[in-house]
């Protein structure tokens, strides 16, 4: 097939536009990462806004802006963006995990817990879903639930110190010092410099 000269020019021009646009988009992403690294979250949000304005359903851009709003302390904007990300992709585990962060920051424990439970329904032993759900349980002072939950999760992540810390903390808050000490000692095996565990052992065993 032969292409006439004006049509060829159009094709070349369109191709150049695509390349330019791609380079420009790459530049915006790179810029936003650099701005985030510098701690200039507002500028990074502005950079991402340009992408979302051009393509409102750009899932990753919406997710990224939600994260940047969270870092910038704009929790309500972050919640709105994570909800938008879930509308764009209702299978997203990341959006469900993400929205828990601003909700926890606002001490909206039960709403955060609902998203944690939703994530666990989709991905039963998801590390971050269980971890963030434990933060919500601690916020609600649900010490028995937290102790059971942390103990069960620690079985799935036996080398992880964080679930052990929640387990020990929940036992301690119920006045179960001896069992808490046993768990805190396990924490110290994994992280010998763990301040909370060391302080508890110092206070109750030494």
């Amino acid at each position, binding site marked *: 097939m032969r292409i006439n000269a004006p049509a060829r020019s159009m094709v070349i021009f369109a191709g150049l536009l695509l390349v330019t646009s791609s380079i420009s988009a790459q530049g915006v992403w790179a810029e936003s990462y650099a701005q985030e690294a510098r701690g200039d979250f507002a500028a990074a949000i502005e950079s991402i806004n340009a992408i979302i304005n051009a393509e409102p359903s750009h899932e990753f851009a919406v997710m990224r802006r939600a994260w940047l709003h969270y870092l910038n302390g704009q929790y*309500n904007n972050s919640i709105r963006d994570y909800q938008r990300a879930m509308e764009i992709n209702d299978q997203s585990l990341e959006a469900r995990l993400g929205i828990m962060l601003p909700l926890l920051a606002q*001490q909206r424990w039960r*709403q955060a817990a609902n998203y944690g439970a939703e994530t*666990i329904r989709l991905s039963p032993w998801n590390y971050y879903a269980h971890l963030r759900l434990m933060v919500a*349980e601690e916020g609600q002072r649900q010490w028995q639930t937290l102790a*059971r939950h942390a103990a069960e999760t620690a079985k799935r992540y036996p080398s992880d110190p964080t679930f052990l810390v929640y387990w020990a903390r929940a036992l301690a808050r119920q*006045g179960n010092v001896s069992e808490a000490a046993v768990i805190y000692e396990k924490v110290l095996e994994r992280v010998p410099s763990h301040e909370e565990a060391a302080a508890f052992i110092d206070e109750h065993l030494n």
Partner: protein
Amino acid sequence: MSPSTKTSCLLILYVVSPLAAAQEAVDSWIVATDVQALVGSFRSSIERDSLNVLGFFVKADYLEKGGVTFGYNRTALSFLNANSGIDQDDVFLSGRWSLTPDWASGRITVRLDQHTISNDDPDNGTSDVDVIAPQLSYQNFANTFYVDVGYARSNFGDSLSLAGKLEVTQWTPTLGFGFNDSYDWLQLRGYLIDFSNPLRAQSLDSTESLEVKWIHWFDGRGPIGIDNLRVSALAGERIYAVDHDAASVYNLADMQTGSASIGGEWLIGERNKLMLLMSYEKFENRDIGNAYSSGSVYLNFNHRSN
């Protein structure tokens, strides 16, 4: 059991198991019920003998956004004069809504309470009481600072012996401070109360008082398994007060000239709490020149549905 059924059961077990580990945190509505009783007796009063209150509150809260409360309390005040006393019904309705704007770094709550009180006071002066009591509060996320402004407008029924209507206006500015890693809470609340008709308020047109509350939570369990210890005191004068925390109206009380209370709360499992408070209150009835006191024991059992 067919292989497919077995697979389904295994799948269900796999999915349910981690959820079960965290099951108690997932419901959007919390319904809590309080059952309360107060038994009190008066000393040195030339009129009053005893006071008994029995009641309940049902609170339903949706996530951390808002909620409603319904309450009913039955009060029996008996006088020294045999066969005389006042029986009273207090119906309480309350709604609240919380906001968390980013600029606040905390929670702002708007609350509106209503009391409808009726009793068989022969004089009718303490009956037919309608109270409307809004409150605007703020607590920071660090749980180190709390402030609220409460207002209450109480309309009392016509008295057969004392002329004129009685309307009571109350302002309650409140400050709260959390310290010691949130193991301690100190709250100061001023009661600034104005009366439209001094004749029905022991010749006073206003009273001022300050209430101080301190709560200490124990790390683990405290002595005798207690979760928290609470102490409060009131200084100054107070009559016809509306207590936002206790959701009660002092429409039957004479002028309070001071009070002190001490008590604690026990956790029974994760969903039940038992509170015991012992109080000593001083009163004065200027119309008949009688200063007296009361001692009371208050018991509250709280159950949370989930």
